C-alpha cells in the first residue's frame, strides 16, 4: 500500500507526454537458496498522463515475464519393435525457460494479431523455431508439445484476466514463479493497449540468482569439475567411514 502511495506521489510530481507506465515490483531479485520453493512477484504500477482519460476503447494491461532463452530438443516417441522409442527430434532454436503472460482481459481482445507478431507477446510467438529437418512434416506439433509440457509444470503460463486495472490508471498482478527455476535475467515487459494497439511499453528485469551454498556448489561443479568430483567422493568416503565407526561404537 505504501508503495502504491509512493507511485501516486510520483504520478503527481512528474510531467508526462502521452500515457506512460510507472512501475513497481515487490522485488527485483529472486534468490534461489537451499530452501527455495517457488516465489511470487507482485507487479504493480500506474499510468501517467497529462490529458484526460480517453473514454473509448478501454485501457488494457499485459504483463509478460520471460526467463533466459535456451535451445531445446523436443523428441517424439514411436512404437518400434513393440517398445516405445524416441525417433523424430526437432530443435527449437530459442524458447524461454520460463514464460508468463498476464492480461487484464482475454489476450485476443487486448492485443491485435499484428501487434502480437511485432512484440512477440503470446506464448507461441515467444518461441522461435527456424526449421525442422525435411523428414519431419508436422514440425508445429513439436512446438505445441513444448508449450503443453512446459504449461503442465507451470513454466509457461497464460493468466487471462489476472491483471486488475482500477480507474484505467492503477494496475497490479502477481506472477507465480515455480520451484524449478533456472538462473538468469527474467525480462519483464508491460504493455498498455487500447483497441488492440500497443500505446506504451515498459521493460525491466528481474534477476534470478542462486545464492550461498547453491551458488557455490553450482559454480564449482562447472568451473572446477575435477575438484567438485573429488570433493563428492571424499564426502562419500567420509560418510561411509563415519557410519561404520558409529556402528562399531553402538555394538561395543
Amino acid at each position, binding site marked *: 500500500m505504501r508503495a502504491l502511495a509512493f507511485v501516486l506521489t510520483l504520478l503527481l510530481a512528474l510531467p508526462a507526454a502521452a500515457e506512460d507506465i510507472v512501475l513497481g515490483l515487490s522485488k527485483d531479485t529472486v534468490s534461489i537458496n537451499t*530452501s527455495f520453493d517457488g516465489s511470487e512477484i507482485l507487479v504493480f504500477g500506474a499510468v501517467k498522463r497529462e490529458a484526460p482519460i480517453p473514454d473509448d476503447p478501454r485501457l488494457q494491461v499485459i504483463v509478460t515475464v520471460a526467463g533466459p532463452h535456451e535451445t531445446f530438443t523436443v*523428441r517424439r516417441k514411436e512404437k518400434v519393435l513393440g*517398445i516405445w522409442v524416441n525417433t523424430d527430434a526437432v530443435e527449437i532454436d530459442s524458447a524461454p525457460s520460463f514464460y508468463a503472460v498476464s492480461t487484464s482481459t482475454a489476450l485476443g481482445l487486448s492485443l491485435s494479431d499484428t501487434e502480437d507478431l511485432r512484440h512477440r507477446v503470446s506464448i507461441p510467438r515467444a518461441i522461435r523455431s527456424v526449421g525442422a529437418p525435411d523428414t519431419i512434416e508436422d514440425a508445429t506439433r513439436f512446438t505445441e*508439445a513444448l508449450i503443453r509440457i512446459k504449461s503442465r509444470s507451470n513454466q509457461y503460463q497464460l493468466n487471462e484476466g489476472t491483471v486488475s486495472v482500477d480507474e484505467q490508471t492503477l494496475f497490479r498482478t502477481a506472477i507465480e514463479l515455480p520451484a524449478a527455476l533456472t538462473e538468469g535475467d527474467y525480462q519483464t515487459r508491460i504493455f498498455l493497449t487500447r483497441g488492440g494497439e500497443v500505446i506504451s511499453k515498459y521493460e525491466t528485469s528481474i534477476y534470478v540468482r542462486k545464492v550461498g551454498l547453491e551458488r557455490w*556448489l553450482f559454480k564449482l561443479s562447472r568451473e572446477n*569439475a575435477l575438484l567438485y*568430483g573429488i570433493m563428492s567422493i571424499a564426502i*562419500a568416503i567420509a560418510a561411509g567411514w563415519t557410519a561404520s565407526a558409529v556402528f562399531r561404537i553402538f555394538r561395543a
Partner: protein
Amino acid sequence: MQIYLPIAEVSVNAFLLLGLGGIVGILSGMFGVGGGFLMTPLLFFIGIPPAVAVATEANQIVASSFSGVLAHLKRKTVDLRMGTVLLIGGLIGAALGVVVFNYLKALGQVDLLVKLCYVVFLGVIGGLMFIESLNAIRKTKSGKPPARKKHNWIHGLPFKMRFRVSGLYISVIPPLLVGVSVGILAAIMGVGGGFIMVPAMIYLLGMPTKVVVGTSLFQIIFVTAFTTLLHATTNFTVDIVLAVLLLIGGVIGAQIGTRIGVKMKAEQLRILLAIMVLAVCGKLALDLLLMPSELYSVGAAGGH
C-alpha cells in the same frame, strides 16, 4: 521441508529423500546388495532427471560400499589380488560405459538404454534368484546340501594366476571380462553392479562365497568413484546435495536392515529380494510397452 537441488535444478522434499535412502538402506542391509538398482529407478519416479540420478547414485554407492568393505577387511574376507584384477577390468569398462552413455545422450536414447538395461538385468536376475531360492527351500526340506561344480571351461584359459585368499589358480581373463562388463553397467545404470558381480564370482569364477561380497565391494568403491569423477567432469551431473541426503538415510537404514536380516532365513530373504527385483522390473517394462500418455519429451539441446 522442500530443498532445492543445485545441479538437478528441481525442488524436492528433503524427508522424501531421507525416507527413500532409509528404505533402500534397510533393504540393502537385509540382502547385502548396494541398492543402486532400486534407488536409481526410484529417483526417476520422483522426477530427478535420469542423467543426474545415474551420476549421483554412483557417488552414493561409494559411501555405502566403503562402509561395508571396512567391516569385511576386519574379517579378512577381501581377496585384494582378485579385487585388483577385477578393478583393472572395471576401470576400462567404466570409461567405455561413459563414452557409450554420452554418445546415446546425444542421440536422445539414453533413457531407453538405461531402462532397457534395467528391465533385462532385473528380469533375468530376479527370475533366476526366484527359481533358485524356491529350489533351495524345497531342498532344505529334503535335507540335501547343494553340490558345486569344480571344473569348467574357464580352467583351460592361459595367463594363470594364483589367488590365495580365494584358493584359486585360474586365468586372469575371466575376472578381467567380469570387471569390464560390471564397469560398463556401473557407468550406464548408476549401479555398483554387486547384483551381477556376486553371482558371476560364485558361478563363473568359482570363488568361495565368504570372500565374494567383500571383494566385490572393494572393487565397486573404485569403479563407482571413477564413474562419479567421469560424470562430474564430462556431464556435470553429480548432485552432491542429493547424494548427501540419500547417504544419511541409507546409512541409518542399513544398520536397521542388517538387524532385521539376521533374524530371517537366507532363502526367505532371497525370495523376498527376488520378488522386489521383479516388481521394479515389471514397472519399468510396462512403461516401455504401454503407450505413454505424452509422446513428446523436452530435453536440453543435444549433439554437443
